[in-house]
């Protein structure tokens, strides 16, 4: 059924109900009025009659009494009866409407109850009548003689044919008002309905399920609308919730990004400082502590002079003139930290421009890098080149001088000529060895050397190397001690390369020995390995130096060591060669007493590992 039809039907039913209710209320009111009238009239009349004499009320036989006049003159349709009774209740005179019997009333003894009203019943079953009776005492010569009783029908709800036109007249406007009211209501509802439809459309768009409603059309519409509204609200809440979640997510993402940027800056290998336009530190990562010895939190918001007292650094981090600092700047300073370690620190200052405007500076980014290592490396390389050029040019110088002097001197001095030729030969040898060493080092660096291995008799090899070295360099009165077992296994190695390693160790043992000291070369072997040990009684190596002696270009700062020419290549080269043979070269030393270098070679694995590689 359509919404409107249901609504119309409801209106009709409601109208009928209203009509029934109206009729009921009307009749009820009418009944009450009639009953009230009966009471009032009855009481008035009995009072009136009570003042009359017995005889006036009880006529003699054949004559009409006052009661008869009363009956005839009575206009009230509800009048039922009038009676005069004596003290015992016996009826002395009566008038009744047709079909009515005067109901027997109880006798009234108490004088206070002589005047009153009561409801009496008469008749049986469906013909029973209710009467509103008013009664009053009658006196004759001051003596109570009896009562006068007037009865009226107690009014009932009834429809009399006389009232039909009235009712019809009443009902008609009501009945006519209903359609009018209906149409007016429809007109009023229309906009609400449109809203409902809109809600419906909205609901369809959003796509949620409608609640099926069975009640009355208007209520159903309202409920649908309300439901739609609620659902739309829910949708809105969901949207808001989603937005909230998105926001939370974005916030988390932002925090994450922020953290990530911070993590990047914190883990950056260099110290980073951001100094704003006011010259105050606005960011510093953790590396600053290691490089400059200040805590990042402690310098935030401070000007350079407030946290730094190094006269070299202050000018690097103070920016007075804006124009002068528009360009990136680089400077390296040597700083001494609290633990007395010295560092080479490079300051790179970059201006932070406002995006898209290179004339405006937000501040400066300062990247501080520890360049101690590269600084040291550069220093060593410079030193190395210095040594190399000295080492190269010294024999060249000798060659040049001798050859030049041969021209003038050698012609007539045979002895000098022999000497010159020998010196020239030695110096050429020396040059050649140095150049070979340099080439070897260079080749190792490039990885171009392949060991040419053969089975070598270790005893013969070591004896040979030892002899060559000791014969050539015996100028300090050193004592040489060779201790090699008579029988030693054959070892699989590159003889030429290994000779360089052993030579370098022995050369050092001689070079850095004390006058009269001992140089020892010993070897031992067990089932798995061979150990070659070179010892000296020289200056020894300090604990800090021992960590670095195998580094290329390293030269000790010890004066005694410095006195000797060297290029910081020998030990580095020796270690590389031993490692190429899958062995290891280690050193122990006691400053002032001497050093002990140990080459350890695995007997079996050497060959296997070589094949594997």
């Amino acid at each position, binding site marked *: 059924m359509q919404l409107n039809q249901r609504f119309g039907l409801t209106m009709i039913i409601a109208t009928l109900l209203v009509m029934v209710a109206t009729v009921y209320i009307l009749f009820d009111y009418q009944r009450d009025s009639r009953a009230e009238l009966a009471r009032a009239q009855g009481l008035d009349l009995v009072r009136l009659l009570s003042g009359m004499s017995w005889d006036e009320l009880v006529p003699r036989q054949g004559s009409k009494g006052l009661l008869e006049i009363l009956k005839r003159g009575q206009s009230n349709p509800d009048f039922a009866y009038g009676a005069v009774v004596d003290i015992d209740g016996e009826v002395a005179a009566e008038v009744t409407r047709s079909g009515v019997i005067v109901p027997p009333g109880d006798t009234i003894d108490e004088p206070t109850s002589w005047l009153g009203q009561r409801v009496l019943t008469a008749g049986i079953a469906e013909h029973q009548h209710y009467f509103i009776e008013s009664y009053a005492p009658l006196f004759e010569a001051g003596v109570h003689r009896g009562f006068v009783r007037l009865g009226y029908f107690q009014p009932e709800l009834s429809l009399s044919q006389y009232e039909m036109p009235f009712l019809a007249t009443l009902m008609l406007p009501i009945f006519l008002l209903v359609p009018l009211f209906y149409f007016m209501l429809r007109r009023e509802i229309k906009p609400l309905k449109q809203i409902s439809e809109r809600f419906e459309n909205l609901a369809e768009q959003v796509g949620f399920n409608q609640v099926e409603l069975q009640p009355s059309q208007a209520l159903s519409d309202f409920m649908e609308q309300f439901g739609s509204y609620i659902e739309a609200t829910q949708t809105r809440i969901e949207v808001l919730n989603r937005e909230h979640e998105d926001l939370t997510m974005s916030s988390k993402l932002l925090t994450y990004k922020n953290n990530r940027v911070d993590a990047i800056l914190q883990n950056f290998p260099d110290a980073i400082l951001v100094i704003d336009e006011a010259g105050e530190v606005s960011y510093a990562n953790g590396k600053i502590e290691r490089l400059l010895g200040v805590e990042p939190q402690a310098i935030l918001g401070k000007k350079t002079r407030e946290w730094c007292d190094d006269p070299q650094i202050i000018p690097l981090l103070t920016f007075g003139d804006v124009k002068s600092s528009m360009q990136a700047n680089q400077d390296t300073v040597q700083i001494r930290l609290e633990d007395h370690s010295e560092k080479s620190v490079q300051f790179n200052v970059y201006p932070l421009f406002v995006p898209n405007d290179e004339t405006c500076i937000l501040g400066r980014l300062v990247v501080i890098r520890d360049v101690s290592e590269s600084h040291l490396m550069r220093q060593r390389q410079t030193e190395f080149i210095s040594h190399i050029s000295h080492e190269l040019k010294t024999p060249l*110088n000798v060659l040049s*001088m*001798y050859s*030049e002097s041969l021209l003038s001197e050698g012609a007539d001095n045979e002895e000098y000529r022999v000497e010159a030729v020998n010196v020239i030969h030695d110096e050429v040898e020396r040059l050649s060895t140095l150049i070979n060493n340099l080439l070897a080092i260079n080749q190792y660096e490039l990885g171009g050397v392949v060991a040419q291995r053969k089975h070598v008799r270790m005893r013969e090899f070591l004896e040979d190397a030892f002899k060559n070295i000791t014969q050539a360099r015996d100028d300090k009165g050193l004592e040489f001690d060779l201790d090699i077992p008579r029988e030693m296994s054959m070892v699989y190695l590159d003889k030429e390369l290994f000779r360089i390693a052993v030579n370098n160790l022995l050369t050092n043992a001689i070079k850095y020995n004390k006058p009269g000291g001992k140089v020892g070369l010993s070897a031992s072997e067990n089932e798995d390995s061979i150990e070659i040990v070179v010892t000296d009684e020289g200056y020894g190596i300090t604990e800090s130096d021992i960590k670095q002696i195998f580094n290329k270009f390293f030269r000790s700062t010890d004066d005694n060591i410095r006195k000797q020419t060297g290029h910081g290549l020998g030990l580095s080269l020796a270690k590389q060669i031993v490692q190429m043979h899958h062995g290891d070269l280690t050193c122990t030393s006691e400053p002032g007493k001497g050093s002990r270098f140990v080459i350890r070679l695995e007997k079996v694995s050497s060959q296997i590992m070589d094949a594997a590689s």
Partner: protein
Amino acid sequence: MKKILIADDEPHVLRVLKLSLEKEGYAVDVCANGKEALTRLEQEHPDILITDIQMPHMTGEELCLHIQQHMPNRNFLIFVLTSRTEIEHREWTRDIPNLLFLEKPVSIRNLVEKLDGYFAGTTDSWRVS
């Protein structure tokens, strides 16, 4: 006879220089390092000092700086034998007058010409005060 003191840790260099310069008529004294050179300078007052740079105990650089500091009124010329040609390796001599570099390999003839010119007073371009 003009006296020349030579300091070098390379005995061959000392030998050839001594031989060649004596032949040219100079009195030549030799020593193996800076420390020895200082002693000889005080004892013998040479007219010329020829020194190498890299020497044990006291380098040529230390020797020259020491002379500059402790012998302000010296009246001898210094020749420094060097393997390096770069200017930054000569920075340390900036405040030392009467000092000349001889690049290795040294030509004896060239050295003799310079010495002769110096003593004859014909070479003005030297930083001689």
